[in-house]
């Protein structure tokens, strides 16, 4: 896929759409399109987090492995969502498994490439980190609501 096509796709994607054109141009230099089939594993907990993924179409599930237990599904993600923040933080290893539930189209971003560009351009870095801070904020809210078990009978 041509770089300008990637740029256009990023521009229209929920996650990137409010970034300045210059940022999108730089980011598209680290991006490529990938497809994954239902049932395939996108990432394994503990493996190198060289990339992160932005979902264009399809559905994936984030799971946590626990010894002597079945994998624990945590959340599903779909169009507009992001899989992976470990590319930002040393030692750059995935914290969860990510499995495709449906055939999915993703934008794969090369974490090392983007980290390098963010180090060289702190304004870009600030905007990218702000985007990921928002993803983390939303995941934290979601996780606390799920942990509160809000639909259970009340204990007055």
């Amino acid at each position, binding site marked *: 896929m041509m770089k300008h096509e990637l740029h256009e796709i990023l521009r229209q994607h929920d996650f990137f759409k409010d970034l300045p054109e210059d940022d999108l141009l730089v980011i598209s230099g680290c991006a490529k399109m990938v497809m994954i089939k239902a049932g395939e594993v996108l990432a394994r907990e503990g493996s190198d987090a060289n990339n992160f993924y932005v979902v264009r179409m399809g*559905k994936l599930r984030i799971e946590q492995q626990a010894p002597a237990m079945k994998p624990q599904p945590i959340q*599903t993600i779909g169009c507009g969502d992001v899989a992976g923040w470990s590319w930002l933080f040393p030692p750059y290893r995935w914290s969860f498994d990510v499995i495709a*539930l449906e055939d999915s189209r993703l934008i794969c971003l090369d974490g090392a490439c983007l980290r390098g560009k963010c180090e060289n351009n702190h304004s870009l870095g600030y905007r990218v980190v702000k985007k990921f801070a928002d993803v983390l904020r939303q995941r934290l*809210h979601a996780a606390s609501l799920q942990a509160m078990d*809000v*639909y*259970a*009978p009340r204990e007055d």
Partner: protein
Amino acid sequence: MITTDVLAPVVATVREIQQETQDTFTLTLETPEPFNFKPGQFNMLYIPGAGEAAVSISGDVTQPHELIHTIREVGNVTRGLVALKPGDQLGVRGPFGRPWPMDVVDGRDVLVIAGGIGLAPLRPAVLALSAKRAEIGRLTVIYGARSPEDMLYAREFLGWKDAFVARATVDTASPSWRGNMGVVTKLISPVDFDPTRVIAMICGPEIMMRFAIRSLSALGVEDDRIFLSMERNMKCAAGICGHCQYGNYFVCKDGPVFDYDQVRKLFGVKEV
């Protein structure tokens, strides 16, 4: 003026009882006269010896010969209600309360957000909205449940998915679950509605409603187009005893459906 009618129950007979989930059942009742109501209204159901509880009407407004209630067993009265068998009798007072704003939906997108047992008071609204789809904009129903096994009206929900946008999500599930997992607010998408005109109807645990309102406000949905159904303990259900007081309101009479503009200051405040 309050007549004595609202305080005197009519005797209803159980025609059918259907298990929805492990702790929730749907009762179909017959009343001596057709039972007319509006979506969002509730009845007081009375079991001799156990007492009375407020329960929303979950049936179809066009079918007044069958009175439908979906009941989650949580205490004395609800335990008595779900133990009823076909042919048993119970007391019914109602219908009470301010309904969902079905009079303002024409020409507008409608977003229904339900959590847990909160789908029960919304079901009549969904059925009525579905029946008048030609007169409204887009209809979207979003439902959050504890787990796949805790989803109400599961089979009917599949039919809704064929007719309009209907999405469900659960908080926990086994790996075999292929559906959505995560909080209900994640399913709110401006792709489905015009935030400047949509009418939102929300019912569920207050904390879930708080998060849903936050998401809608962030998208630009104004407070007076967000409608909520509130729950408070009820006694008379007729605006007499003050048991259900909520700030300046009595939930039984001024609610249970409020627009968020009315209750914003009270919402999320403990014990008002």
